[in-house]
C-alpha cells in the first residue's frame, strides 16, 4: 500500500496550484494574517501557463483610458475573454486591476518596459485597447519570492488530488501526492479553507499532433483537477458546455497570436478578415480572436490555408513583435523559426485553430471567489463565470486570498482529517494502480479520453443528443476498463494517471452540460437544436452533484 505520511501539514488557507492566481492568492491571504501553504504540482518558479512569461494584462487605468469603467467593461465583453462572464465580476475586476499592476511593478515585474503604460494587442480598429503590454518573463520567480517573504510555505512536487469536507460539508483538508521521490506517498493537509487555482484544463482534447500529449498551447499539467475535486465535494461548475479554443502557428502550439504583428491572409495574399491591411504594433490582426473558425472554415471550403503574413510589417514593429514573443515566454517559437530557416521578412507561417480547453469554464464563484462549498474558493483560469487571462488570474487570486483569509477568522478549530473515508479510498485506489501488472498506461487512458471527446463533443463537429449520449456511454465503458487495468510504475506515472481520471470525470460533466444547452450557440452547434435561442442569451449552464449524481441546470448571468 502507498504510504500515508504521518506528518499532516496544517495551514489556515491551502492554495492548490502555484500558478499566477495561486501565488497572488497566497500573497494576499498571508498579508491578511493567514498561515498559508501552497501545494504545487511542479515548482512555483516555473509552473503553469505563465511559466516563462506573458505579455498582455487586461487592466483599466482611468487616467490612460480616459473613459468610464462601463465603457471598459463593454470592450472586455466584446473581446477574447469577455463572453460567458458575470458582468458584476467584470466590474469588480476592472476597478481593481490597476492596483495589481502597480504591485507587480513594485515587486520587479516590468509593467512599463518602455517607460509608459502601453496598450496593444487583441484590439479592434477604432476601439479602446484594454491589454497592457508588459514583460512577464520573470513573473513566476518574482511572485514566488513575494509569497516566501510573507512566510508562505510552498510545497513543490505535491499535486493535490482530492478535497476533504466534514459532515456539515465545509472544507477541512486535502489529499495530495508527494512525487518528489520515485515511490509516491500520500501527503495530507488539514486546513480551514482551500483556494483552488489549477489552471486552464488541458488534455481533454487531442493536441495538434496525434498521440503527442505535450504539444499544447497552455500548460499540459493543468488537467481540471480543481474543478473535479470541487465538484465531488458539492461545488457547482458553470459554462463547461461552452469550450474555449485558441489559434496559433501550426503545428507547434505556442500561440501568442496577438503578439504577432501581421495580417492573416489566404493563399491569394488577401486578408481574410476586415480589420487590418497594414499591421502596426498598435493594431495587429484580431481576426483570429473574433472569427476563430476562419481556419477550419477556409480549410473545409478549399480556400485556405490561412497564413500569418508579417512581410509588410515595418522593421521596427517586427523587432517589437520578436521582443513581445520573448515577454510572452515564446522563446521556443523564435528558436524553432530560426532553426528552420523561417524568415518573416519573406515567409508566411500557417495558423490553425487548436483543440478546445477549459479556460474560464469551471467552478462557479461569487463576488468573493467563493464557491457554494463553505471554505472552497477558486481563482484564475479555473473559475467558470469569469475570465480575463493573466490579469484575471492575478486579480481574482487577490480577491480569493483576501476573502478566504476573512472566512478563516470565523473558523475556530481545525477538524481531524485522518478518519475521512476518502483517504482510505484514495490510498486503496492509488495502490491498486501501482500494483496492477501488464495493464494499460496512463497515456492510453488519456488518449482514449481525447479521441472520444474529439469525435463526440468537439466544437468543430456537430453535437446532438444521440451523439453526446454515445460519447457518454463510451466514457463510462472506458472508466470501468481503466480502473481495472491502468498500471503505474512510479510517482510520475501515478500523477499522470490520476490526472487522466480527473479528465475522464470532466469529460462526462462537459457532455451532460452540453446536453442541457438545447440550442446552437457559437462553438456549441447542435443538429437537433439548430437555432440560437434568444431566451438563452444570458443563461449559463450549471452542473452540480445532487444525491451522488450530476444534475445540470441553468441560471441567469449576474
Amino acid at each position, binding site marked *: 500500500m502507498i504510504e500515508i505520511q504521518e506528518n499532516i501539514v496544517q495551514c489556515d488557507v491551502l492554495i492548490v496550484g502555484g500558478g499566477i492566481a495561486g501565488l497572488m492568492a497566497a500573497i494576499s491571504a498571508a498579508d491578511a494574517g493567514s498561515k498559508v501553504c501552497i501545494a504545487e504540482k511542479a515548482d512555483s518558479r*516555473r509552473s503553469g501557463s505563465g511559466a*516563462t512569461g506573458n505579455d498582455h494584462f487586461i487592466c483599466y487605468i482611468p487616467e490612460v483610458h480616459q473613459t468610464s469603467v462601463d465603457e471598459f467593461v463593454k470592450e472586455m465583453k466584446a473581446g477574447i475573454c469577455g463572453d460567458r462572464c458575470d458582468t458584476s465580476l467584470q466590474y469588480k475586476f476592472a476597478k481593481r486591476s490597476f492596483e495589481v499592476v502597480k504591485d507587480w511593478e513594485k515587486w520587479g515585474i516590468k509593467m512599463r518596459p518602455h517607460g509608459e503604460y502601453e496598450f496593444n494587442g487583441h484590439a479592434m480598429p477604432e476601439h479602446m485597447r484594454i491589454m497592457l503590454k508588459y514583460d512577464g518573463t520573470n513573473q513566476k520567480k518574482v511572485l514566488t519570492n513575494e509569497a516566501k517573504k510573507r512566510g508562505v510555505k510552498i510545497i513543490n512536487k505535491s499535486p493535490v488530488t482530492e478535497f476533504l469536507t466534514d459532515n456539515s460539508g465545509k472544507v477541512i483538508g486535502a489529499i495530495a501526492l508527494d512525487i518528489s521521490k520515485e515511490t509516491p506517498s500520500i501527503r495530507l493537509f488539514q486546513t480551514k479553507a482551500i483556494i483552488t487555482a489549477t489552471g486552464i484544463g488541458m488534455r481533454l482534447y487531442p493536441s495538434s499532433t496525434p498521440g503527442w500529449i*505535450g504539444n499544447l498551447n497552455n500548460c499540459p499539467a493543468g488537467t481540471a483537477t480543481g474543478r473535479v475535486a470541487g465538484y465531488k465535494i458539492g461545488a457547482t461548475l458553470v459554462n463547461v458546455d461552452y469550450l474555449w479554443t485558441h489559434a496559433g502557428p501550426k503545428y507547434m502550439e505556442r500561440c501568442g497570436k496577438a503578439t504577432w504583428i501581421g495580417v492573416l491572409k489566404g493563399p491569394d495574399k488577401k486578408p481574410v478578415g476586415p480589420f487590418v491591411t497594414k499591421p502596426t504594433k498598435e493594431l495587429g490582426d484580431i481576426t483570429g480572436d473574433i472569427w476563430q473558425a476562419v481556419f477550419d472554415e477556409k480549410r473545409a471550403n478549399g480556400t485556405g490555408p490561412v497564413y500569418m503574413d508579417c512581410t509588410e510589417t515595418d522593421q521596427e514593429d517586427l523587432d517589437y513583435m520578436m521582443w513581445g514573443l520573448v515577454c510572452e515566454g515564446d522563446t521556443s*517559437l523564435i528558436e524553432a523559426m530560426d532553426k528552420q530557416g523561417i524568415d518573416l521578412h519573406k515567409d508566411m507561417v500557417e495558423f490553425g485553430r487548436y483543440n478546445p480547453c477549459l479556460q474560464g469554464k469551471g467552478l462557479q464563484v461569487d463576488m468573493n471567489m467563493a464557491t457554494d462549498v463553505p471554505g472552497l474558493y477558486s481563482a484564475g483560469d479555473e473559475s467558470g463565470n469569469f475570465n480575463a487571462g493573466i490579469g484575471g488570474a492575478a486579480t481574482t487570486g487577490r480577491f480569493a486570498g483576501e476573502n478566504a483569509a476573512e472566512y478563516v477568522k470565523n473558523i475556530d478549530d481545525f477538524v481531524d482529517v485522518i478518519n475521512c473515508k476518502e483517504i482510505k479510498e484514495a490510498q486503496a485506489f492509488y495502490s491498486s494502480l501501482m500494483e496492477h501488472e501488464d495493464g494499460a498506461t496512463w497515456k492510453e487512458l488519456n488518449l482514449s479520453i481525447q479521441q472520444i471527446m474529439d469525435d463526440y463533443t468537439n466544437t468543430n463537429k456537430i453535437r446532438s443528443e444521440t451523439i453526446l449520449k454515445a460519447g457518454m456511454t463510451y466514457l463510462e465503458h472506458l472508466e470501468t476498463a481503466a480502473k481495472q487495468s491502468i498500471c503505474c510504475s512510479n510517482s510520475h506515472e501515478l500523477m499522470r494517471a490520476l490526472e487522466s481520471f480527473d479528465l475522464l470525470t470532466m469529460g462526462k460533466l462537459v457532455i451532460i452540460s452540453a446536453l442541457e444547452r438545447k440550442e446552437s450557440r457559437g462553438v456549441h452547434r447542435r443538429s437537433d437544436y439548430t437555432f440560437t435561442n434568444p431566451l438563452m442569451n444570458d443563461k449559463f449552464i450549471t452542473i452540480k452533484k445532487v444525491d451522488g449524481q450530476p444534475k445540470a441546470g441553468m441560471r441567469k448571468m449576474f
Partner: protein
Amino acid sequence: MPPIIKKEKCIACNTCAQVCGMDVFGPITPGQKPKVRYPEECWHCRACVMDCPVNAIEMRYPLPMMLLHTESSKKDRNEG
C-alpha cells in the same frame, strides 16, 4: 526529444528537473545527472534552457511540430 542535456556540460545540479512544469526530467538524485525521461510531455516552455546555470540544455524541435510556412512573394502581392 525536445530538451537535450549535454552530458559533458551538465554539473548535476538538477535545476532542470526541479523547475520543469511537466516533470520531463528525473529522477532527482543529488550529485547525479538527470535524464530526459518523458520527452513527449514537454510543452516547449524552455524554462530548463533558461534556468540551466551552465547552458547544458538545448532544445530539439520534433518533426511533427515543424512550423508550416511558405514564401509570400512581393510580386504576387502587387498583382493580387
